[in-house]
Every structure is written in C-alpha cells, then in structure tokens.
C-alpha cells in the first residue's frame, strides 16, 4: 500500500501482544463499513490480515497485554514510531483477563501448568500498555465495543478528542429497560463497571462480568457491601470482580506509576 506516501490519508497500524486477537477480529467484522474505512485511512500494518510493514504511523492501535520481556522491547519501538497510540480492548487497557494470574503466586501458576518443568518457563506479570509507554486513548471491553472503536477512529481522523464514557453500565441497562440483573437474583457488576457496551450482556440475559473495568471513582468496599446484600460473600464478590480487573483491584500490584 505504497500510495500512502502521497495521498495524505492517516497511516493506521494494528499490533497485537498477549491476547486472543478477538479485538483485531472485531475490526474485520465491520463488513458493511470496512470499505468506507479504507477510503479514509491507509492501513499500513496489520499482521493478522496483510503482509506489508511500515516505518511510522499516525495512529497505532495496540491489542493485548505486556507479559514478556520481548513485548516490552516491541512496544517501546512502536511508541517511538507512532504519533498517536491507542490501547484497544481490555488486555491492553488494564491487563484484562491475562492479569488473573497476577493475583496468584507466580510459583503456583507455573507449577499448575508446567509441573516439575516450571523453572524452564520464565514469565512476568501481565501489564497494561500504559505501564510501559504513554497511551493517548483507550477503547475498553472484552471484546472491545465496535461502536466505541469506530467513534475513536473517526474522532482521531477528524482531529478531535474522542468522548469516553465514565458512568456505570447500569445507566445504559436502564435505558434498555432491562429487568435488573441483581433483582433477578443473579450476580452483576453493572453498578461499578464503566459503560460503553450498551449493556450487551444484561440485554442477552447474562450478568455484567465487569469486562470494561471499573468507573474511575469506584468505591470497592461499597461494591462489596452491595453484593453482600444480594447474598454473595466478600470472598466470592472479590473473586468475581477480579476476573477482568485484577490489576485495578490488587492495589499491591504497581507498575511504577501512581
């Protein structure tokens, strides 16, 4: 795609780190909009879909957590070459589901998986991209919410600052007129989880798993008290809250930033 040198379209690149690549796949799932998107940007690097590689990028989208020393080297290199860097999906934003292992003693994790060979396989905690380099914008969720991604992409193309929601999933769930999941007797993390998914899980009869991370002013003790009122033990409530949010909730884990 060498036409990008002269046509003035922003050069966009996608990179994947430790993740399931589901967020990348979601970008190919815009079947109806994909050709329109290609009119507006030049995709210069997207290993999952194409061969080309580029030297610099106007916008770099990063999927996945940083979980090996090689990941750290790669992300530094990408940051140096990217004007704007966007963390895409919860693994990149917070460590996501990969961070579950961070709450367990590393020795135990490695032993469970490798048995006697555990010392052969070094690993570091799963970190958000922002623990290593500056992240300009975030698209949350596991998987990322497609409309939110489109909003961020369009805003950046237009040179605007994307609008990021910072209120609870409950707000969107009420707008959908769903029956309250907690009232149905199920567990739910809607009250403390950041909106932007259009309450897709409660709308499909499931509980909110907290995959978009907590709202910025989360009251952890209040959330545990609320879940206890609905019959969940403190231990159970915390365990379930950590499925996607171990790094946020494990205050003892710090990545050199406050």
């Amino acid at each position, binding site marked *: 795609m060498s036409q990008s040198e002269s046509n003035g379209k922003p050069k966009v690149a996608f990179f994947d780190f*430790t993740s399931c690549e589901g967020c990348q796949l979601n970008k190919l799932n815009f*079947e109806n909009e994909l050709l329109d998107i290609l009119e507006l940007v030049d995709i210069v690097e997207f290993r999952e879909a194409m061969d080309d590689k580029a030297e610099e990028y106007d916008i770099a989208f990063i999927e996945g957590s940083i979980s090996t020393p090689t*990941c750290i080297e790669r992300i530094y290199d990408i940051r140096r070459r990217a004007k704007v860097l966007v963390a895409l999906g919860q693994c990149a934003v917070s460590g996501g*589901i990969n961070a579950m292992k961070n709450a367990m003693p590393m020795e135990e994790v490695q032993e469970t998986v490798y048995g006697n060979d555990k010392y052969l396989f070094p690993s570091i905690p799963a970190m958000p991209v922002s623990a290593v380099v500056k992240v300009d914008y975030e698209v949350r969720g596991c998987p990322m919410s497609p409309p939110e991604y489109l909003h961020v992409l369009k805003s950046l193309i237009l040179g605007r600052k994307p609008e990021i929601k910072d209120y609870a999933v409950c707000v969107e769930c009420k707008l959908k007129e769903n029956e309250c999941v907690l009232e149905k007797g199920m567990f739910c993390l809607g009250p403390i989880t950041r909106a932007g998914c259009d309450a897709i899980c409660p709308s499909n009869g*499931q509980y909110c798993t907290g995959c978009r991370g907590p709202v910025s002013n989360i009251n952890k003790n209040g959330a545990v008290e609320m879940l206890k009122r609905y019959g969940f033990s403190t231990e159970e409530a915390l365990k379930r809250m950590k499925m996607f949010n171990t790094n946020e909730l494990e205050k003892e884990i710090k990545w050199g930033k406050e």
Partner: protein
Amino acid sequence: MSRDLSINVHHVTRVEGHGNIVVDVKNGVLKKAELDIVEPPRFFEAMLKGRNFHEVAIITSRICGICSLGHQMTSLKATEAALGLEISEQTEILRKILVHGATFQSNVLHALFLAAPDFLNVGSVFPLVNTHKDVVLAALRLKRLANEIAEIVSGRAVHPISIVPGGFTKLPTEKELIELKDKLAGQGMKDALFTIDVLASLAGEIPRFERETEYISLYNEKEYGLYDGVICSSDAGLIRVEEYERVTNEFIVPHSTSKHARFNRSSYMVGALARFNNSHKLLRPKAKEVAAKLGLEAPNHNPYMITVAQMVEVVHCIDDTIELIDVLLDRGIKDEKPNQEPTRFGRGVAATEVPRGILFHDYTYNRKGQIEKANCIIPTGQNLANIDDDMKKLVPEILNEPKEAITKKLEMLVRAYDPCISCSVHLLDVKFEE
C-alpha cells in the same frame, strides 16, 4: 544439487498469532525445516482453578477471539458432562446452528481473506478491493451473514454471551430465525457458490504436493461430525472422546511455545481436510457437488487443499443451518430456562470440531462446583508436528526453485493450516534458539 539455503520468515503474516518459519539447507541437505512458535504464554489452566462452573466458559472463550464460540461450546459440554447437566433438544439444535455459523465464518475469513491473496499474488485482501471488487463484496456479505448467525443465536460473534451451562439465557425469536433462513437460502448460498466458482478458476495456483498422514476428526454416523461424535483416526478407527489422551500424546519441542502431538505416526492432521477425508460421505448433497467441482476427492493428501475443503464446508454449513432452522420452526421455540442444577461433581471431557480441527476440554470439579483441574488440547497444537513434517518433505522437492518461490510456498503451507497460534500457546512458554 549442493545448494545452501537459509529461510527465516519472522512473524508469518495473515495467520492468527506469532510464528516464524525457519529452514536451513547445507550442501543440498536439509538440516532444519520447522515452524517456530513464539507467542507469549497465557496460563489459562492456572487461571481456571477455583472458578465457578458458570464462569468457566466466559474465561475459556478468551483463549481465542477467533475460536471463541468453539472454546465456549467445548467448555460447556465438558462442564455439563462433569456435573451431569442434561440439555434439551432445542438447546442442542441451537448449538449445532452456532457451530455451523462459527465454521462458516472462520472458513470464509481464512479461505477468502487470508489465503486467497496468495492465489492472486498480492500481499493482502485490500488491493483486491480495486481489482476484484465483486468477489470482495461477496466475501464481506458472507462474513457478515455468518456473524449474524452468531449474533442472533448467541448475542455476539466474538465472545458469545447467551450460551451457558445447561442452555441459553436468551433465545432467538421465530421471526429472527425466518429472516436468517431466507438470507442463507437466498443471497448467502448465491455468494458462496459465486466465490467457489472464482476459487475453481484459480485451482492452478494451488501447489501440487502430496504427503499422506494420519487424519483425525470427530465422527458421527448420523451427520457430518462437527458438534459432537467420537474420535476417528484414519489409521486406528474410532476411539471414545474420554480416551483423548491416548490420541493426542502431547510432547514438548524446544522450538515451540506450543506442545506438539502424535498418535500412530510422527504426526497427524486435524481440520477441514481431515474432516473431509473421514466424513465426506455425510456432507450435504450440495456440498458434495461443490467438492467435485473443486476437484476435491477423498482421500486427499495435499495440505494446500485444506482451503478448498473449508469452502466445501461453508456450503454444507449454510445448507444444514437452513434445515436445522426448519426443524426449530416446526417444533416452535419453547421458552426454556438453562438447567443449572448439578447432579454430580467430577470429571468431564468433551470434544467439538472447531474450524481448525478437533478441540478437547477436560475439567475436574470439586463439590462446590469449582474447577480443580483443567486441560485444553487445541487443534493448532495438534497440527504443528504435521506442518513440520510437511516442510521436511516439501523443501527437498522444490529446492531447485528460487528462494522467493520456496518461501512463498512455505508461507502458503503454514497459512493453509489456518493456524491459530494464540490458542495453541494457551499454556506453554519455551525459550527457542535460532
């Protein structure tokens, strides 16, 4: 011929995950030909420990976004086997539709978006928007339609929502199913047959290479085995799913963060071509016609034909989904709640044919309904030894060709297997040396 050749393709493109092709020839003698897997480890088995039975599929789904439905489905079946949860006939039919949808989606993505550019000598699908717009548009419509199956029946294509142990938390409406059926029977089938015609016209671009191996898939005497069945080996016949470890025999190799597998030979193949070779008689008639048109006959020993077998399966999945929807509509959709009352706690093993081949999940639950032990055996991991064996036979056969041609054929070979490397390294991390 006393040629020296060194090929090192760092991070093969248009595959899911990170792998390198390493080939080393000295004085015309092949010293090394292998696919190095360099994906970071994930530790899923450790993360599952202590999790409640209804959380398990939510977590295993995240092993791979591309195979999320397959992981959820296999996870649910293993949990149900371990806890003695019965599912209804309606649930089973809806799940079969979902497996068809996932196979349809993934096969289209691989054959038409990731592999097809090789046949047309371009580096990605994007330049084809200008040169082959009608094909790209048909391919995009097919992918959208396949994703719609997942969205209507499970709430979301990547990491489905409403499939849970014992059933569904939300059911599709009859109106949604009728609309879906009309789309599948109309534009869907039309687009599938059109892209297959294009693929047939490019048959000459598919490299000719043969290596007979052991073909392993699920087998079900009533239907083309995808959702459920017993293990079938082209060498050893039928084996119970519970005895999967006798088949997979996982072992560690230093050049891969994913374990390898072998059964009766040094390697075996899983995936669309293995399924076709073992179960072709059970394909829908329309799919058999397409196979004949594409020159695919069982048994076929050319791994490059995996892509062709995938498109045959696309037609089978579309056609069979139409019939399954008809069965559902005849019965009427019943408002059923998921059955989540365990009748026992113990071990459960399940297998599903996911797009890249047979997938096993094996769980042991404690009396609180929490995971004590988990093991997942991934199709791509099972194919890795077979890919290495293919490369070792292929490289000497094409050694007189230019390096670029050899590299392209090797990349196409790896890509033909549609490897899903995120899946395959869900647990292992081994240092590798070049």
